[in-house]
């Protein structure tokens, strides 16, 4: 039983995607175990929509991003982009798809080449698109810079001359240079100050409206995700624990982990209540038959420790990986 949001225009679908990393020990580097970084992840992203992927650091959300971009090979499962399973594509077959999916990183400075001017950086993408005439490339470059709210003068300057927010704009322009249809945003604003954050979020929204882009928005900030995303998947320990529309996640969360995440976020508009997150117990590293959240779950029962938990549709398009979905149990 896996996710299928019942819509036709799905641009990206992950079906039961798995990625395990070996743990090697000793002189001969024997494999002594596996880190289940991504353990059966499924979700859909619709055309022109934003899906938020939230979770704590180390839960595997960035690994999911790398798998989608094929920077890592999936071990199992399907990554279906515009109807074609790209998870087993060769490098050569991948080439046309590389343009379709782009990424914006958290640290815009670390992801821009310090020895290339902004112009060179962005023009590389335009050239890849097959634009041969220099004048046409220049025009496109100017367009892109305008689109992200920067002047054409910046093309001759180097990344270090810009502030964090401007660098993130450059990163966005570079991602747009190859005319992608899906952009993976990996914590794009978490390194920025509040006042700059709003500028970048507005920019991402404008670009989506203008160009019909789809976003996979990876973040740990629930305030931003709640503002920006149409659907949300909550990830914990390599699995999706709950996925639903943004309204449903915030208004009727089912999973205990979603509940504790939501209650942990301090919000200036309401009194802070941390009772839920404090009930969590100390997480030992011992893993894991049954539920991945068992060591931190306040409602854990014997059954959770033995049986694998299914991803069940509790309401239309609202999936939960917890068998205690009767809400009266949780409260």
């Amino acid at each position, binding site marked *: 039983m896996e996710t299928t949001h019942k819509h036709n225009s799905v641009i990206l679908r992950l079906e039961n995607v798995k990625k395990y990393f070996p743990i090697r020990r000793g002189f001969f580097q024997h494999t002594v175990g596996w880190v289940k970084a991504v353990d059966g992840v499924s979700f859909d992203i619709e055309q022109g929509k934003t899906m938020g992927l939230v979770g*704590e*650091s180390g839960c595997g959300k960035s690994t999911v991003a790398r798998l989608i971009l094929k920077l890592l090979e999936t071990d199992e499962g399907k990554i279906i982009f515009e109807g074609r399973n790209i998870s087993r594509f060769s490098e050569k077959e991948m080439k046309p798809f590389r343009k379709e999916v782009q990424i914006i990183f958290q640290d815009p400075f670390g992801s821009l080449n310090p020895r290339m001017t902004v112009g060179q950086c962005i023009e590389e993408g335009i050239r890849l698109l097959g634009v041969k005439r220099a004048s046409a490339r220049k025009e496109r470059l100017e367009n892109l810079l305008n689109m992200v709210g920067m002047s054409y003068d910046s093309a001759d300057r180097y990344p270090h001359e810009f*502030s964090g*927010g*401007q660098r993130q704009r450059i990163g966005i322009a570079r991602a747009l240079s190859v005319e992608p249809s899906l952009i993976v945003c990996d914590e794009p604003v978490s390194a920025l*100050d*509040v*006042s*700059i*954050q*709003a*500028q970048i*979020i*507005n920019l991402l*929204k404008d670009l989506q409206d203008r160009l019909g882009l789809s976003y996979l928005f990876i973040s*740990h900030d*629930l*305030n*931003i995700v*709640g*503002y*920006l995303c149409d659907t949300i998947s909550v990830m914990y320990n390599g699995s999706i624990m709950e996925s639903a529309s*943004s309204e449903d996640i*915030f208004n009727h969360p089912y999973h205990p982990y979603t509940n*504790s*995440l939501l*209650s*942990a*976020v*301090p*919000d*200036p*508009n309401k009194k*802070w209540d*941390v009772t839920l*997150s*404090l009930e*969590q117990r*100390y997480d030992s590293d011992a893993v894991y038959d049954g539920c991945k959240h068992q060591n931190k779950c306040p409602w854990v029962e014997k059954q959770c420790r033995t049986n694998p938990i299914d991803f069940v549709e509790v309401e239309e398009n609202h999936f939960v990986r917890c068998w205690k979905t009767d809400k009266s149990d949780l409260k």
Partner: protein
Amino acid sequence: MDKQPNPHGTPLLKVENLKVYFQSDGERARAVDGISYEVRQKQTVCIVGESGCGKTVSSLSILGLIPSPPGEIVGGEIFFSGQDLLKLDEKAMQKIRGNQIAMVFQEPLTSLNPVFTIGNQIGEAVYTHKPMDAESLKRYMIQLLSDVGIPSPEQRLNDYPHQLSGGQRQRVMIAMALSCDPALMIADEPTTALDVTVQAQILELLRSIQQKRSMAILYITHDLGVVSAIAHWIYVMYAGIIAEQGNADQIFRFPRHPYTQGLLASLPGRSKRGKRLYSIPGSVPNPAYKPKGCPFHPRCPHAISPCRKEYPDMCDYGHGHMARCPVLYEKREHSE
């Protein structure tokens, strides 16, 4: 102008017109440019501001940790329990640092020494200020670690920092800070590197410790959400000055400075879905080239010509709520 703002308790720490400048390549960066604030006993005071606003510099200068050169405390006074910290020599300062004023930093992994065990490091901190025999030192450390909620503290004493999770490392840092029963704890973005659930636990821990030990906390952060959760009193800093001060209710419900208003309006949240976020235009000024007059005027929607020339006065809105914006203050009087 500078009245006693908050009605409860006596000031434990009082910073008066502090100015810290940094000199480099012939440029003078006015990182902290005349700020005054106070922390009263048993209070949590938050200094909130964006990166580069001078919030960390102001806290480091309390402990005499400003590297000099290039930094220099140009003027002002810092009173802690009645004595001026800026007039003390290094030896007297060492008695206060870590003992009466403790500090917790943002990134616990860089503040802990990777080649010593947790026990070693806490032990050193305790022994420096309170010499005691090995047996009672160990007992004391175990007590400290269990106070900050670390499970099986006896074994943790022999662990190295890398063996602990981020949240636990921060708990160890807090345990070290608590080791000498400080009257004031300065916490500089202690939860910024942590996940929200862990952050919630650390904040709750700080709150309960504060109640138990009746300690004052000076909490420095950029996160308005955290501020709203813990602060008794808030100072909003912008470009080296204090733009606004007040309690949580005053700051979050009735912000009186255009910068505070802008910050709050630009916070994304579910309630703003579908609407465009307000964003403060431009960016934070370089401390070496701060604009004349009000440092916020180039980004301010209410700026009028005097803002470009004159340094704005603090305007009093009553009950300690003050904002450094005469323009909005006048508008308020007209509208009432």
